[in-house]
Each structure stands twice: as C-alpha cells, then as structure tokens.
C-alpha cells in the first residue's frame, strides 16, 4: 500500500462546477489530490492516459465524448463516479452501490458518503468493478430520449446550401439512382427541389403514413398536395398536384389507393 496521496480527475464542461466539486472535495477529503480538470470527454481521456489518477469524477453530459463514453474507455483502470444534474440518468445499479453517482448541485452529505465508499475501496486495494453492463444500461437510458416520432424535418441540400425542410412543405419524393429528390414549397410557396442521400425506403418508414403514401416504386406523395387523380386506360393513373406542373405516375400495385369511395 503506497503512502502517496490518492489522486482524482474532475471532468465537467462548466468551469464553475469543476471549481465547486474541487472545493467540496477539499473539505470532504483533504488528503485527496485533484491532479487534473477536463472540459470534455476527450480531454478527460487524454489526461487520464497521461496522469493515471485513481478516481475520476465524470459529468455525464459533456460535448463531444460524453462521460459515459469516456468511462467505457477508462474501464476498470480507475474508480469512477458519475456526476449528473438530475437523477433521470440514474439506474438501479447505481442505487445498489455498484457504481456511484452524485447529483448536482452536489450536497456535502452525499459527497461524504461517496468519499467513504471510495476510501474503503482504495484502502482495501479493491479493483474497480466491471461496469460495462451498467454503462450499456446508462447509454440506453440516455438514448431513450429519441422517441420514434414521425419525421417532422428533413435536412436536405438545396443548391449549395443545407436546409431544414418541414415535411408539411414537401409535395412529393422521388428516388433517383443515388439520391432522393424532394419536391417542396420554399419561401412564399415557390416550388423547389432538394436532394438527400437517404434512400426513399428509409424515409418512407419514418414519414407519417397518414400524410405520405407510396404511389409508385420510386415515388412517395404528400396526400395534402394532390389536386386530382386521372385514371388512364391500362390500370394506371396520373396524379396532378396543386400548384405544380409535375405529374406523378401511379403504378398498378398502388392503384387501389385511389379507387372511388
């Protein structure tokens, strides 16, 4: 067992909070030496590799590499404590003590509990627990925020620029060899065209099926943009759009959508 002082790294994108934790730690654990302060996950990793602290306090939400991703890289090589603004990210395993977390604003009492646990582990020369499982759960929790709502906005190239186009402004989508063409209403309702790389099939899966319908192998139309549909003789039809000259083909397999009620 070494006599050297235990060392810690603090990572948080907000400078005042790094300062706050440093100060609180100084009071709760005077023997602890904070040897590094990182502004983001990438810096935390770099500093960790260089300085090899015993303990890392990692803010969960950081730009670039998050606290969770940095934790994954560090693995069992240090004792890890997550710091988070609210317990939404806390997983049951955290509460069971397998992995410690602190809620911001950090309470002195809570910190001293965490400090006791760390001191125990260090003095018993216990290795840091394997937390890959917990990290997976945490990542999942963080990503759950991506609710599968129908797509509302599409990022597309319009000429030289990249723009966000509301799906309500889209008249139809047509797939080309490499791109999908988006026919949309721009400013003042002027018809325009944009291109994106996402294949039509993928887009169709994300679009609201109450608003968009596939009418042909390579065409998806916004139902609100249809002016009228004219059926041709041989089991096909043509869709005429409001305010546009384009005529969209309806293939046999989709003709049933336009049968009269």
């Amino acid at each position, binding site marked *: 067992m070494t006599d050297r002082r235990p060392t810690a790294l603090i990572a948080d994108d*907000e*400078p005042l909070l790094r300062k706050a934790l440093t100060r609180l730690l100084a009071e709760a654990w005077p023997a602890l030496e904070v040897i590094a302060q990182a502004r983001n996950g990438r810096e935390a990793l770099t500093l960790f590799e260089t300085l090899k602290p015993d303990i890392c306090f990692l803010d969960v939400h950081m730009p670039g590499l998050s606290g969770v991703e940095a934790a994954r890289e560090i693995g069992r090589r240090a004792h890890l404590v997550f710091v988070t603004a609210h317990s939404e990210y806390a997983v049951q395993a955290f509460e069971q003590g397998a992995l410690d977390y602190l809620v911001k604003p950090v309470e002195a009492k809570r910190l001293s509990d965490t400090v006791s646990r760390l001191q125990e582990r260090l003095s018993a020369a216990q290795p840091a627990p394997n937390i890959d499982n917990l990290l997976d759960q945490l990542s999942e929790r963080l990503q759950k925020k991506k609710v599968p709502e129908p797509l509302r906005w599409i990022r597309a190239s319009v000429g030289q620029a990249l723009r966000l186009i509301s799906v309500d402004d889209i008249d139809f989508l047509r797939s080309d060899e490499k791109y999908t063409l988006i026919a949309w209403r721009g400013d003042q309702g002027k018809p325009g065209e944009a291109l994106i790389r996402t294949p039509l099939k993928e887009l169709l899966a994300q679009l609201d099926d109450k608003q968009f319908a596939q009418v042909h192998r390579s065409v998806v139309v916004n139902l609100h943009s249809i002016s009228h549909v004219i059926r041709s003789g041989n089991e096909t039809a043509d869709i005429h759009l409001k305010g546009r000259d384009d005529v969209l083909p309806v293939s046999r397999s989709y003709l049933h959508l336009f049968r009269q009620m």
Partner: protein
Amino acid sequence: MTPEAAALPPRGLARVLGWRRLRVVLIPCLILSLLFLPGWKASWALLFGRLVFVGLVQLSVFGLFETWPRRLPRWMARWVLQVASVAIVVPFAVAIVYTLTTQDDPVPWVKNMDRMTGFAMLCCFGLLLSPWIAMSALYRHISGVAQRQALAFELERSEFERDALESRLRLLQAQVEPHFLFNTLANVRELVDSGSPQASSVLGSLIAYLRAAVPRLHEPGTTLSQEIDLVRAYLEVMHMRMPDRLQFSLKVDDAALQILCPPMTLLTLVENAVRHGIDPSEEGGRIEVRVAVREGRCRIGVLDTGVGLHQETPGLGTGLATLRERLQLAFGDDVMVNVSAIEPRGVCAKLEFPARWNRP
C-alpha cells in the same frame, strides 16, 4: 336513428321518391285540388289523382336530372336544367294523364270544351307554380349543404383550438427543464459560496428567465422587447455557465421592440442554438440574434457557429414545429420559418411574420 343511417344519403329511387319529396308534391296538389274543386265537373278524387300524377312525373324528372347526365356543358347549371325540365314536362304530363283518364269518353278530350278547360287550367298552374316549388326545394338543399359545411368548419376549428391548447400545454411542460435548472443552481451556489460579486446578477438573470419561462396562459402574446429580455437573461445564464464556450450578441431595431409575437418565439430559437449548436461543440461558438422590421414585416435571425445540422437532433424538430404552429395560429399562413446550415459551420434560423404593434 343510428349514426350510420344518418350519414348515408338515400340512393336511387329512394332518393327520388323519398317521403320528403313526396310531401313536396302531395301538399301543393292537395291545395290546388281544393282550390279548383268548386268549378270542377269531375270528381275530387279524379282531380287530385291527375294533379298527383303530374306532380310525380315532375318529381321523377327533377330527380333524374339531379344526377344525369353526369357531366354537363360548362354553360348549363344543373339547377337550371332541373327547374326548366320541371316546367317543360307539365303540358306533356297533363296531356298524358288526360288521355289515360278519359278513355271512356265518347269524344276525345281535346275536342271537349270542359276537358280542355281543365287541361288549360292544370297546365297554367303547373307552369306557374312548379318552377317556384322546384327552386325553393333546391335552395333548401343547397342551404342544407352549406350548413353541413359550416358544421365541418366549426369542427375543424375546434380541433384546431384543441391542438393549440395542446401546444400550449406541451410548451408549459417543456419549460424549466430540470437539467437546466439544477445545473444553473449548482453554478449559482458556487458563485455564492466563493463570495463572487457575480452571484447576485446571475441570480437576477435566472429569476428573470424563470419568471418569463412559465408562460402566462391568459396572455396570447408578448412584445419582442419582453422576448429580448428573456433571451438576454437566458444567454447571460448560459454564458456564466460556459464562459469559454459561449459568446453572444443581440442587435434589435428600436422600431421592433413593441411588435407582438407569441411567447417564447425568440427563446425557442435561442435555446435550440445553445442546446443543439453550441453545447455539443467542444470549442463552443457564438450566437447572434438579429431583429429587424422592414416593409411591415418582422425579420428575426438567430445564428450560431456551433456544430451545424449534421448531427442527429432529436427534439430539434418538436420545438421548431411547435413554434411554426404557434406562429401560424397567430398570423395565419403568412409566416416563414427557415433553418439552414451556414459556412464554415453553424446554423442560421430565420423567422418572418407580419409586424403587428402593441397599441396601449
């Protein structure tokens, strides 16, 4: 009457000779028959019968031309066809009914003075009355259609209102995110504990933000000057939290200060710029807010030099979409919401809507 029964209009013969329509024929026939009766030589039943026959023929013709032919030449309105046909068919129908009902006459009815008088009278009244009856029936039909339209609009509007209310509620829920609040409070406490002179002003900004961040549901709009104060408070708080990663500037035309807009209009864009542009960026960036008035339109631009549009941005869509809805609720369709990437990196969000001033 079940809802389904009410929804489907009767088809075919049921429609043409439905009870409602029969009534329209029978009642005038009844009245006319009673009117004519005094001077009539034939029996009442016969008179009534003849009148009803003519009426039924007219009704059938009216119903026929209601849907046939499907396509009319442009210059012919369907109602004209229906009314004209109802009139034209009168003499023929009366002639037919007379022929049918005077089979036993020794002399053909056309040579019989009494019969001819009767024929003439029926024709006259038929020609005079029927067009009016037909037109009033058509009018009632059209106004019935108009009523249903009005109801449909009413329904659409109340759905719209309900959506607006839901928008507001979502807005309420979205405000004062715990993440933002607790992080900020943690920062403020540090300032206080370390005796920093900044503490008080930062608390002031936080209070200003919180007070405005809970929208007052009774107030449908705020002025841009209130929005600017709110946005300034928010940016000051964020700058305090990440001084090395956020710079900002606000440029507002004086003339624009009293323009009305839905609450949180500016804040939505600025929050997006911070959350999706600056915060994910390791070096951070700069946010510029510009508000101008030109030619009766208010132009707002929020520019950031953050990570740009290439990242996955869940949640970006909802805030912007809600903003668009609220602007459309307030100003109709004459609004522009445009978000595009800028070079070398970052995003520019532009809004445009008609300028309406607050008149005290």
